[in-house]
């Protein structure tokens, strides 16, 4: 598996995988029955995977969330949805391929699905700008959300970005305005909108498609106001301290659930989503179907009333002698 060698905790897993592969080759060549040994090794492998991924440190969680073999938005769209028709462009400037979106069916029902999209190799990454959207990406996303609203269909967003692109064109064309407008307009949408953080949700670039009725997070996904590297560079004056920053920022799915920001953590298959894309997508699909069914019970006014109430309660502050803020309920 390319790129996995940098994951300390994956080395033993790779070793056993090698043993399994060797045993299989030997068995095939010699016509031997090794099913017992194979079963034993597989058992060992599963136990090891579970162990390794149960107690990841925050910085290891960050590495898993950025794992180069992790499924990206289109991989989930392909597996958890059917009949995807991608729609392109913001109608103002160009098509930003760092955000993909279009009509799809989820368990048979039409939805608008929108996600930040990383590239799988250098060539694709140049096209997709490593999943870092320009203003056009956010404006395309908003156009698609309004289309969903027009036809009374729910919106699903998949969050996976190192951040909005910090470049000249991005600033010239109003990246801040694009994100801000999405936030304001998403708060007003008259249809259900659900986000799933599938990998790394970094800063305002992630949030630009993330103001939603429900926030789901994959088990090994992260969501943060700033990358641990960026935070360490500013507060510890060196990116070397990214492990400390990752811990301090409380950016894991478990943290966000505890802090009351994430509504649900979607469990990943043993060894992480990158170990089994189909299983990861099945888990996302199950969670989305269930969540949208819950939201179906609410009419547009009630949906919006609850969405506003949810976001207006976000945060913690001290007023007089007591601490308030709904999001502190943990």
């Amino acid at each position, binding site marked *: 598996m390319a790129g996995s060698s940098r994951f300390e905790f994956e080395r033993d897993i790779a070793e056993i995988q090698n043993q399994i592969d060797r045993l299989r080759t030997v068995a095939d060549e010699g016509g031997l029955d090794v099913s017992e040994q194979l079963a034993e090794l597989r058992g060992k492998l599963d136990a090891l995977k579970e162990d390794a991924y149960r107690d990841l440190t925050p910085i290891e969680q960050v590495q898993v969330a950025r794992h180069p073999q992790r499924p990206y938005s289109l991989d989930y769209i392909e597996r958890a949805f059917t009949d995807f028709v991608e729609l392109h462009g913001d109608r103002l400037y160009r098509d930003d391929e760092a955000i993909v979106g279009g009509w799809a069916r989820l368990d048979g029902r039409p939805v608008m699905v929108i996600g930040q999209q990383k590239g799988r190799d250098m060539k694709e990454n140049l096209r997709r700008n490593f999943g870092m959207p320009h203003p056009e990406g956010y404006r395309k996303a908003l156009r698609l959300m309004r289309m969903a609203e027009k036809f009374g269909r729910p919106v699903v967003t998949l969050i996976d970005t190192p951040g909005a692109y910090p470049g000249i064109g991005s600033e010239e064309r109003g990246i801040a305005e694009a994100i801000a407008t999405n936030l304001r307009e998403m708060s007003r949408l008259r249809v259900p909108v659900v986000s799933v953080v599938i990998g790394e949700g970094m800063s305002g670039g992630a949030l630009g498609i993330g103001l939603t009725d429900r926030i789901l997070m994959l088990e090994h996904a992260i969501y943060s106001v700033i990358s641990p590297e960026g935070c360490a560079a500013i507060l510890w004056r060196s990116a070397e301290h990214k492990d400390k920053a990752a811990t301090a920022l409380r*950016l894991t799915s478990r943290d966000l659930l505890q*802090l009351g920001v994430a509504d649900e953590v979607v469990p990943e298959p043993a060894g992480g989503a990158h170990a089994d894309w189909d299983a990861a997508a099945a888990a996302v699909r199950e969670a989305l179907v269930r969540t949208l069914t819950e939201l179906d019970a609410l009419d547009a006014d009630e949906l919006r009333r609850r969405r506003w109430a949810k976001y207006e309660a976000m*945060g913690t502050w001290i007023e007089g002698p007591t601490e308030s803020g709904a999001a502190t309920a943990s």
Partner: protein
Amino acid sequence: MAWFRKEKKPLKPEDRRDLPGDVFEKCGACGEILYREKLAENLHVCLSCGHHFRIAAPDYVGILCDDGSFEEYDADLESGDPLGFADSKPYPERIQAAVKKTGRKEAVLAGMGTIDGVEVSLAVMDFRFVGGSMGSVVGEKIARAARRAEERNVPLIVVSASGGARMQEGIFSLMQMSKTSAVLGRLHEAGIPYISILTDPTTGGVTASFAMLGDVNLAEPGALIGFAGPRVIEETIRQELPEGFQRAEFLLEHGMVDRVVDRRELRATVAGLLHHMVD
């Protein structure tokens, strides 16, 4: 402008240093040595080159509001420490240092007042307080200012100055972008005017939420306004940024703000807009 009746009065900036004989201040832009008193009378705009000095939140209240009309709200809101965050210093110590330095409990001063007779809900950010960074209290005070505007059916005015997110509040800091923008969504539907005034500097999450969402966005001359900081951009694209990049005039040219307004014209401009929108 004839409808602009208020006499301009000298300001008493809260950040005035108490150094003995501190009667002069050097302009950071042109180097001119200026009399502090003359500078204050000129609303802290350089008399030689027009450079706009950074000023404190109460100064903007003095500039914008009719004399004696302003009443502060939510002054007692203070930051909690939701993450138990500590880098070289625990977060609560940083807050206490800022409280001591500014005499304010957080980076927003909010309340109700009138501008040329028009009642408004006003919120002003203070860059001196942890770089005007947005944590839960900043978000909550902006949200409450917007709700007051909504409940009383009066315009909302926000003066922004911010280095971005309050990292020490982690995800709660990020969520203040959603919170403030969501309240503005409701205000927008209620047909209530919102004027956003962007001052030096306004960057990060504040720009990418309430600061960019005015019905009218005004910017002070030369103000740095952007999403990413210039240093981050330079490191990313590995080239020097063009002269004037991310300055107020650049944003005007690229269609992101409605007007660049000299501080000495700010009150008159805001009053004029309000009369157009609510009279």
